[in-house]
């Protein structure tokens, strides 16, 4: 290529190669970082964190951050006590989640170049968490029917969509099966003898179709079903909660007995961060930020304090439900990249020995392709960084107006904790729902009080 050409041609060709190398190396770089809301969240300034995120929201549906921004804004608005604004953001998140094939025309680009060109829809556990949060928003407004639908959706998005492997035992039941079991249950309720195809050894009433370990979603579904008067359905979901977390047996017993009129969900800590790791940073994994394991201590004025264990730990969820469909491609690209770079280096070395500019150019080209493959093999680490590490649920009986509830983390959280102030007994026969996000700064002033906006307990509709 360079043999027999002028020195000017050689310099120009080498310049082009260098430019290609710089450009390809740049492809692997992450886009510019944004200020993190974590600092404000750690000191309990959830409104400030919300404002920070909302000031950067992307409005172009084609932008990778469109849904990520909305998910963060939805969570932080609920943290800040603005239920209505949270609902607006989550409604848009839900719209995107319910739109299928959004990344279909981007798949080729994402495989050849980088995952960053795809619209971010989150890992399955992030989608499920967003839907459970949407459920919290609905329950806060007294819409237990929508809380039920949200919990149902959360379980849906953790479903395994991969085709069944050969020889793997069938472990899913479809909606027809659910309907059949429900019909059989209702037949039994009417005193009729239902016909069973496969024995009457059902453990439940047939309402729980999807099985995973997202206890919070099962619990929310159970409570919501109970609030709608669907006791058999609630019972199935409560069964699942106890099966997943025997430590919650006392809570479930209380719920089954209907011995509560208020549900409190407490969010604590920061969920795990997503990092690139492994060869060529081609793999991604979630790394815990907070690792607290202690239970939450709930104190209601005039009642004995009690402890509740965490219902959901996001550190665990991130490990269980991580979605990595592009990981194989990224690893392959990284390996190919290494081979190409090594091959290119060998060709260049031999070309220098033989003083052949043509071979040198070919070697440089091979190495450049290798760098391109390696550069784009880096895992994308966008993730929803405002989810809590853990969620707690307490069922309470509020009988007096202006009741304060204090939540402490024994051994970790300084005495004083955070307080839900001036709760009142619900005005309807449905339970009230409150959500409280606890600041994550373990050295924060122990007397810090977090005020939350009073939820709409009776709904604004007749």
């Amino acid at each position: 290529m360079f043999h027999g050409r002028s020195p000017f041609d050689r310099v120009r060709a080498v310049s082009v190669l260098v430019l290609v190398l710089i450009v390809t190396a740049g492809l692997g770089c992450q886009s510019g970082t944004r200020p993190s809301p974590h600092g404000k969240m750690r000191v309990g300034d959830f409104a400030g964190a919300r404002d920070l995120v909302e000031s950067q929201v992307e409005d172009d549906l084609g932008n990778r951050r469109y849904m990520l921004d909305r998910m963060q804004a939805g969570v932080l608005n609920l943290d800040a006590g603005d239920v209505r604004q949270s609902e607006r953001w989550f409604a848009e998140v839900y719209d995107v989640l319910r739109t299928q094939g959004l990344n279909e025309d981007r798949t080729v680009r994402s495989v050849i170049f980088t995952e960053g060109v795809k619209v971010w829809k989150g890992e399955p556990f992030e989608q499920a968490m967003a839907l459970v949060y949407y459920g919290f928003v609905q329950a806060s407004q007294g819409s237990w029917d929508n809380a039920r639908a949200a919990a149902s959706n959360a379980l849906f998005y953790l479903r395994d969509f991969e085709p069944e492997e050969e020889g793997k035992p069938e472990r899913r039941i479809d909606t027809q099966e659910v309907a059949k079991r429900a019909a059989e249950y209702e037949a039994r309720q009417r005193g009729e003898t239902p016909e069973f195809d496969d024995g009457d050894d059902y453990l439940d009433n047939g309402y729980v179709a999807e099985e995973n370990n997202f206890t919070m979603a099962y619990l929310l579904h159970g409570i919501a079903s109970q609030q709608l008067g669907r006791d058999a359905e609630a019972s199935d979901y409560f069964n699942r909660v106890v099966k997943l977390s025997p430590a919650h047996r006392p809570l479930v017993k209380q719920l089954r007995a209907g011995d509560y009129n208020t549900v409190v969900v407490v969010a604590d800590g920061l969920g795990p961060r997503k990092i690139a790791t492994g060869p060529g940073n081609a793999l991604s994994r979630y790394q815990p930020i907070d690792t607290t394991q202690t239970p939450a201590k709930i104190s209601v004025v005039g009642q004995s304090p009690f402890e509740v264990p965490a219902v959901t730990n996001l550190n665990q969820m991130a490990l269980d439900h991580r979605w990595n469909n592009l990981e194989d491609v990224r690893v392959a690209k990284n390996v190919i990249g290494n081979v190409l770079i090594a091959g290119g280096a060998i060709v260049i070395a031999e070309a220098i020995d033989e003083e052949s500019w043509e071979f040198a150019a070919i070697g440089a080209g091979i190495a450049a392709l290798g760098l391109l493959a390696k550069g784009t093999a880096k895992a994308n680490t966008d993730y929803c960084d405002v989810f809590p590490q853990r969620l707690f649920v307490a069922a309470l009986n509020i009988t007096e107006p202006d009741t304060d509830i204090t939540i402490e983390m024994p051994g970790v959280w300084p005495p004083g904790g955070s307080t839900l102030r001036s709760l009142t007994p619900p005005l309807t026969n449905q339970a009230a729902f409150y959500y409280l996000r606890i600041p994550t700064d373990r050295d924060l002033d122990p007397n810090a009080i977090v005020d939350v906006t009073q939820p709409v307990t009776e709904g604004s509709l007749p």
Partner: protein
Amino acid sequence: MKYLASAAIVMLMVSSLGCKTTDRTSRIAVDDYVEMTAVMAQSLRQSDAFAERSAESEPWIVSFDKVLNLSSEIMTQGEQWGVVALVRGAQPINSLWGDKRVAFVIPAQYAIDRRGTLDAERADKGFGSERSVTHTITVTFRSVTRVAEDGQGRTDVYACEFQMLDLNSNEPVWLDVFEFKRTATGSVRD
């Protein structure tokens, strides 16, 4: 040869016209409700409760009393009552006043809420008080979801159940269920 090529092009164009557009979501669309109102009006006219009624009958004022969402679809309260407003305002439903003397209204409190706080404060005491509601309607949404094994398609079948109750007798006078099916293609999870 030239004619064969032309014929092939025309056939291709015609066949592409026949292709159904690919839906990306299986959520209920406004068009579904619009179609439903026509069927619903027909169902009401053919019901026993409406059969004897005429333009000279004593008016019935039917208020949408409650919306319950038992589907897997999250429908905010605003969306739920938006559907009710759409049904109530549809021409086939409105036409029932002309020949059956049946009017459908939305709850006073809902209308007040929709106007905003300031209006609500001014209107709260009197709005809707002149109505004498004779019947109520409850609306219940249900759904069944089916997903392709590989997660590349989803179908939702929705059932929208209406039940009309006579407030004098406390007996249901009309009940019907309207179903629509929505299918979407593409990866469910992307």
